[in-house]
């Protein structure tokens, strides 16, 4: 904004001249002192300000055309830097409008810190590490707490089954389960096909292409089916649980529930956990079957293994236990995913920034825990020879 509003005049960049006479410094400013012109002058002016320390400066602005707050600020800044402000240091020749602007800007001329003072880098690194360890310790206790709370709530509710929120459970089964079926099915079909392809290529070297059936059967039934279902559900529904509960937390809906005498664990967490535990085995089952079908399709098209032969050999060589191993894991994965998703949602605080962080954390943690758990299961079943 320029206070002089005469219409379209050719703009003239800000300029100045310095005169030293009888120990008095005189700065004659001219042109338009607008923010956009000041970049070119600023460093010279700062150097000049250093020269003026302890001396008197008279600034003549009678030749200044347009002036904005930045220009006024720079002019006032020159005066501020004179260590002794006597009457000789002042701005003369200002038009009434300019004078008003200068007067308004004067009380606000002071430098400021742009960023917080940086801490010692090493110290803050050690501090962050320490904080991470301590927070991790407390977070794991918190999760255990949360699991316990959910289980006791479940025990209480199951004794009084009409408290079970069936509508909510069914809703989450649809949301997290049925809606996930197409993507889970497609993914495991493709993985089954890829495994068959890779297997066939390597096994051909040994003239043992026929073992592709075992490869696909064991890997898909035992691991890939359930793991894929778990990974997709963690990404799709675990994050959705965190986001939904977290949003409710931010909007104080959780507090409202408590204030109304309702238990958020019972209302929000339990239906999600139960829905996922019920539906995850179904998803894992579907994923396993489609994975095997994917392998079978590749076997039939890319190799000379007919579907009938594929199925026959599958029945002959693959023990049913492989299938059960896959399915047994599903409810455990479901429990972990739902618990972590809900726990992270409850941990959301205040800002939507925290919501984003918690949602990311929820997915990362549940994937991590699912895979760790899967490794434990693998060792366990190996030990008991199942």
């Amino acid at each position, binding site marked *: *904004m320029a*206070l002089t509003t005469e219409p379209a005049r050719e703009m003239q960049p800000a300029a100045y001249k310095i005169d030293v006479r009888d120990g008095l410094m005189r700065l004659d400013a001219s042109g338009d002192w607008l*923010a*956009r012109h*000041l*970049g070119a002058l*600023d*460093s010279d002016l*700062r150097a000049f300000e250093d020269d003026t320390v302890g001396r008197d400066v008279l600034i003549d602005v009678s030749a200044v055309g347009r002036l*904005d*707050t*930045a220009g006024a*600020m*720079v002019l006032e*800044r020159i005066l501020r830097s004179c260590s002794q402000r006597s009457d000789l240091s002042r701005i003369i020749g200002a038009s009434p409008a300019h004078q*008003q*602007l200068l007067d*308004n*800007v004067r*009380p*606000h*001329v*002071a*430098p*400021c*810190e*742009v*960023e*917080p*003072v940086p801490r010692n880098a090493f110290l803050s690194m050690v501090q962050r590490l320490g904080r991470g360890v301590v927070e991790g310790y407390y977070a794991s206790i918190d999760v255990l707490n949360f699991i316990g709370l959910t289980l006791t709530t479940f025990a209480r509710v199951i004794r009084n089954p009409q408290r079970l929120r069936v509508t909510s459970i069914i809703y989450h089964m649809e949301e997290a389960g049925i809606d996930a079926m197409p993507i889970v099915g497609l993914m495991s079909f493709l993985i089954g096909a890829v495994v068959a392809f890779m297997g066939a290529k390597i096994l051909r070297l040994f003239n043992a292409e026929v073992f592709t059936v075992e490869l696909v059967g064991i890997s898909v039934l035992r691991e890939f089916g359930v793991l894929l279902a778990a990974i997709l559900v963690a990404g799709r529904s675990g994050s959705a649980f965190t986001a939904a509960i977290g949003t409710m937390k931010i909007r104080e809906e959780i507090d409202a529930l408590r204030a109304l005498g309702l238990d958020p664990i019972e209302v929000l967490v339990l239906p999600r956990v139960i829905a996922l535990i019920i539906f995850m085995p179904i998803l894992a089952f579907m994923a396993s079957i489609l994975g095997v079908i994917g392998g079978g399709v590749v076997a039939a098209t890319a190799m000379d293994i007919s579907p009938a032969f594929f199925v026959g050999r599958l029945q002959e060589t693959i023990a049913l236990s492989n299938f059960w191993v896959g399915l047994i894991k599903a409810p455990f994965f479901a429990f972990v995913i739902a618990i972590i998703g809900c726990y992270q949602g409850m941990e959301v605080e205040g*800002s939507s*920034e925290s919501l984003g962080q918690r949602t990311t954390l929820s997915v990362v943690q549940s994937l991590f825990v699912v895979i760790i758990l899967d490794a434990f299961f693998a060792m366990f079943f190996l030990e008991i020879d199942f």
Partner: protein
Amino acid sequence: MAGDATFEKVIEVAGLRTQFGDNIIHENLDLAVRRNEILGVVGGSGSGKSVLMRAIIGLKRPSAGTVKIFGEDFYAKSTREQIETEQRWGVMFQGGALFSSLTVAQNVMAPIREHLKLPEELAADIAAMKISMSGLPPEASAKYPSELSGGMNKRAGLARALALDPEIVFLDEPTAGLDPIGAENFDRLIVNLKTSLGLTVFMVTHDLDTLHATCDRVAVLAEKRVIAIGTLDNVRRSSHPWIQEYFSGPRGRAALSAKGAYADPSAQEG
């Protein structure tokens, strides 16, 4: 309005229609804002006050009508010309809308950095001045928005709106959510800045006290258009039921009795 021709109109909205899908918010809305006035826009919840502001600042394209800023149709401009116009106004959103990853000073410096090629030090000095003008203590400049109270966030939002020395400032509910003392300080600040910097202020508000204390003119939004505009006294005399209820209810009367505590005396024109 009588005598409108004698004032320079910086914003002129004519025949505006805005809609979301089939839901029409404004229909045939006319509004003019004069240079160097504080215009308060009031209206019930859902009357489209904020949408009107968004239509004027280019965030919500109207489905009919024109929005003239400084005499030129904003939506007929090229993107480049629009950006030039945008530098001549500042907007303070309801919650401040500060960038949360930047400190207050960096927030204020952001438009300066983007639009003016200035040395960092000078940009910081300008930011410090605007922060101080907005009534924030100097310590606030190096803090992040999350470390500040709601009122301070609003002030910082105002400082950012003022960064480029705008001619028009848009304020969306500047005093909503502030305690009475904070709101009163903010009112005073707006009047001060208007007189000292020669600003034109377009203010959406619910706050009757703010309306009384700061606004030169008031526009009332109802029935999808501006049903009354003028000085507060003139608008209050309108017989429209909503206006009667708004200004003559207990809150309206209470605010009125404290009227004009620090309104700018030079701006009391009809």
